[in-house]
């Protein structure tokens, strides 16, 4: 996860970019989350994204992140010179979140046993994931309070998709 604090036309943005795969990022801007896929990766001139944070020409991950960021940053900013339209805010596919409870393997959610605000103990059943026709109990990785539930019954999840997040993450 990399956090960028931007000041665009006197508006402040905090943008968190989480690398999901080499070409997929989760970008969180304020309350909105976007899954961004990187379709091109060009080396642009030595741009400075964050003051004091030069983009390394060789560091592909930084460049990729920067590019992904470049693509999404127009969305929340009030119509500046939009060269690339931001990706539409896809229905939240609940891509993996750090600190959150993520799906250990692909499958279908059969049961969700908690809701936002619930306090859980470590190991408490949070959901049941049907994988390879086996019902797998997904337990809470730690004690805490559920901040958000990202899945609903019948939903297909992929490996690493977030199931719930905890407050304080």
């Amino acid at each position, binding site marked *: 996860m990399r956090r960028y604090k931007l000041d665009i036309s006197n508006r402040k943005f905090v943008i968190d970019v989480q690398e999901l795969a080499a070409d997929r990022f989760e970008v969180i801007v304020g309350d909105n989350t976007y899954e961004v896929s990187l379709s091109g990766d060009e080396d642009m001139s030595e741009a400075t994204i964050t003051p004091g944070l030069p983009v390394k020409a060789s560091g592909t991950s930084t460049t990729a992140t920067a590019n992904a960021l470049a693509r999404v940053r127009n969305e929340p900013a009030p119509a500046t010179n939009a060269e690339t339209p931001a990706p539409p805010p896809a229905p939240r596919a609940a891509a993996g979140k750090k600190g959150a409870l993520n799906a*250990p*393997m692909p499958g279908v959610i059969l049961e969700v046993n908690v809701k936002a605000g619930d306090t859980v103990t470590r190991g408490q059943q949070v959901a049941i994931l049907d994988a390879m026709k*086996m019902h797998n109990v997904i337990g809470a990785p730690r004690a805490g309070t559920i901040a958000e539930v990202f899945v609903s019954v019948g939903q297909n999840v992929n490996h690493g998709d977030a199931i719930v997040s905890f407050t304080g993450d």
Partner: protein
Amino acid sequence: MIDHETIGLLLKGVNAVTWQSLVMIGVSFVLMYLAIAKDYEPLLLLPIAAGCMLANLPLSPLMAEDGMLKVLYNMGITNELFPLLIFVGIGALTDFGPLLENPRLVLLGAAGQFGIFLTLILALLLGFTPNEAASIGIIGAIDGPTSIYVSGILAPHMLGPITVAAYSYMSLVPIILPPIIRLLTTKNERLIRMPYSSRKISRRTRIMFPIVVTVLVGTLVPFATPLIGMLMLGNLMKESGAVERLTKASAGEIANAVTLFLGLAIGSTMVGAEFLKTSTLAILVLGIIAFGVDAAAGVLFAKVLNWLSGGKVNPMIGAAGISAFPMAARVVQRVAQEEDFENFLLMHAMGANAAGQVASVVAGGVLLALMGAGG
């Protein structure tokens, strides 16, 4: 007036009751109890129990020349049709994805067949003929149709006990595997986590797999061609997505109907005098040894893999290298989660289990080749 002859005719049934048939009817009740009350492979054990009961009733017309049970037996057991049709259904239900994602798991499937050959030697030492010994050994694969197929060719007279052993042990997988796993692994080994590797398997690979395996195995082990061919046909239909109706029928209606016929026909081989022999007991005992050794060999081999990989393989998944897909893999996952609820070995266990399914078929073919079946 009623004379002695008339009474004799009326009581023909009662007079034909033998102690063996009574015992076998008792056995059928036990099987029914296991199927209905204990839920042990009821789909197969209930028809077997019914076939056994019907065949042991005195002078059972079902067992006469054109009796239904005889007809079913000749229709699908003597020529191996039924187990092969079941295999199409199994293929249509088996997902080889986890194996394709992690192809080295195929080694665990191979290791999971070791017990077959050890049991073969044990059975030979106990005085069984080589053909009989091979049929007993194949019980270790915990693969009903393969057991029926192999023993149907090599030792048809032992089909009843072998099938009952294979299927009842299959239903005992959840009871037999965990102690074997716990005995052979340390707690630390059982706690090894194996993260899911989300390698995407292309549709092309999934379609190519059954074709390549059929050609390869069929060329290397011709005796396995019928089994592997049908298994992979089912899988090809599933993965191609081109013949959804046939896939559905194979995995559903056809498999269900054949299971009923197969169960009845197998049950009908369990006739008193033939079944109640010490050899039956020996078969049951050897069968469970074969099963245990298969699972143990899988675990031990997985330990070797773990050592070679520097601690990245949880040895428990080796226990899924037997057949009994997908039950063995589920049992492994359950044991893993009992110790660490955040440990999800399921996909790896499924891979080993799918490999075991293929390997047991190959082992069956190898046994047939060793015994020089079919000339």
